[in-house]
């Protein structure tokens, strides 16, 4: 059984039929990527999984359990953590307070240690721990958003466009981190416009076009697919 099962979900924004029967699966331990153009419905898919939007039809299941009965804020306790589109750091909270909010769902006494672990992973954040997050650069905010999501000790990490607006060198750093997080045992569902980078670290991928999954395969095969190369990898 897959860890995350999305079964034929339909989601509407007002009258716009944003998702027209999207199905996908993420198995434990995998990095799965969802690629597609702007407006294809990638972010909507993640928002539907995390319960920020409710689907009009279809199911989202985590380890076989239907998530329709849970509020968004309860999903963290089920092991899902999300890095939202545009990073969504709390600009007026300090870096450290942002990390503490990431651990909001936890009551154990290891939070402090985990904050130190995040600082080891991203030394830049440690330098700026007392600064309000709004003063960080885009790259630092992405580190903070990723670190904050990790603070919940998720089983499944949802990442929405971690490369957005970042210089190529920073993108590589972020993707290395995602791979490391995955190696330590966190399952990852990665939404990306940067298909080249996403497919280079993913095990499998889905291609989303105007609200529908048009292709799904291993990352390697997708990278070699003519249609994917033409549409998303800039290869003629």
């Amino acid at each position, binding site marked *: 059984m897959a860890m995350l099962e999305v079964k034929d979900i339909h989601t509407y924004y007002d009258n716009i039929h944003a998702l027209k029967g999207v199905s996908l699966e993420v198995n434990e331990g995998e990095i799965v990527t969802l690629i597609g153009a702007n407006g294809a419905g990638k972010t909507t898919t993640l928002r539907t999984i995390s319960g920020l939007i409710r689907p009009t039809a279809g199911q989202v299941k985590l380890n076989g359990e239907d998530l329709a009965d849970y509020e*968004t804020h309860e999903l963290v*306790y089920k092991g899902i953590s999300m890095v939202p589109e545009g990073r969504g750091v709390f600009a007026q909270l300090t870096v450290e307070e942002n990390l503490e909010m990431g651990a*909001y769902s936890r009551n154990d006494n290891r939070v402090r240690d985990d904050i130190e672990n995040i600082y080891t992973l991203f030394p830049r954040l440690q330098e700026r721990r007392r600064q309000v997050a709004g003063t960080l650069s885009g790259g630092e905010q992405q580190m903070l958003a990723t670190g904050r999501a990790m603070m919940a000790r998720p089983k499944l990490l949802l990442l929405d466009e971690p490369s957005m607006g970042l210089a190529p060198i920073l993108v590589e750093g972020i993707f290395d981190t995602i791979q490391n997080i995955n190696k330590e045992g966190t399952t990852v569902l990665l939404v990306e416009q940067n298909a080249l980078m996403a497919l280079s670290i993913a095990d499998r991928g889905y291609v989303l076009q105007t609200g529908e999954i048009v292709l799904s395969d291993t990352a390697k095969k997708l990278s070699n697919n003519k249609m994917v190369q033409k549409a998303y990898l800039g290869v003629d």
Partner: protein
Amino acid sequence: MGRFFGRRINFGDLVVQLLQVVVLVIVVVALYNTITTGRYTSRHWVSLIFAGLAQGSIYALIALGYTMVYGILRMINFAHGEVYMAGAFSTVFLAQHFASNGFLNAQPVLAITVLILFAALVSMAVAFLLERIAYRPLRNAPRLIPLITAIGASFTLQYTFRGFYGTQFRSYPEVTALRGTVSLFGYSIPIVQLVVLAAAVVLMFVLYWYVERTKAGKAMRAVSEDKAVARLMGIDIDKVIVTTFLIGGALAGAAGVFNGLYRPQGVYYFMGFFPGVKAFTAAVLGGIGNIPGAMVGGLVLGMLESLGPNAILEGLGIPGANQLKDVIAFTFLVLILIFRPQGIFGERLREKKV
């Protein structure tokens, strides 16, 4: 619209700047007149300052309720004056009871603490019901709708109390321990003013600590910034919103008792209106949504109201200046809205928030 020293200026800015100069000139002339007549001694000014601080700390406690709810929901809870009234009004009966059986003067500290807790509980209950019944169903409605509802809720509360207790004025009993003055740097200050000021400052420190240092307080700030992301962190935003209303209610209830100690008269169903509007002014003055802003705004407004009539209005030769306290407060509100709508500590609202 033209250039001035190389800077582009438009007509609106010009009018605002002219107005600024006019207001400044009037205030300076008035102060000059007052001081040169030498009618008031420093003793007089010090007593006005302490009266202003005591009144201002009451405004500040109420203002915190406005500003915290605004911070979380971007909504002005115009029924907050009635939350204050409910606490102050309900507690008057308990206070009279304590006075008649002697408890109030035998154990003033304990009795006043019980009164504060009781008033806080009543106001919290009213604030809780307001949120649940009047505001929560309108969470996703256009912004004007909850505002209108707030005004309706405010009338509902006023006339509920009027229906139960009539239009008669009641008053808090006098506490003998709070009678009299103490000498401070050679000036004699009424004890009650110092007690009210000190107690309010303690409550404000506790609140500040809660918001800045505790996990729940940080979650509150997170919700105020971004509700969707806060939910992704596992924060139950409904719980945070209720907590915000409860804290605002508790502070308003406490303010009701402080007010009863400081100005025992005038407890009736409409008593929440003026303190409510003035606390709102204080919150806007400090920068709505900003917690230290509401504290400072309340104290500044209280002092202005206290000093303004003598210092400014009399200097302009306006007769009966002492009856024009309210004019000062509301003129001030208009001036803030013209010159510095974001308040003392306020930030200009970013588009994302609006």
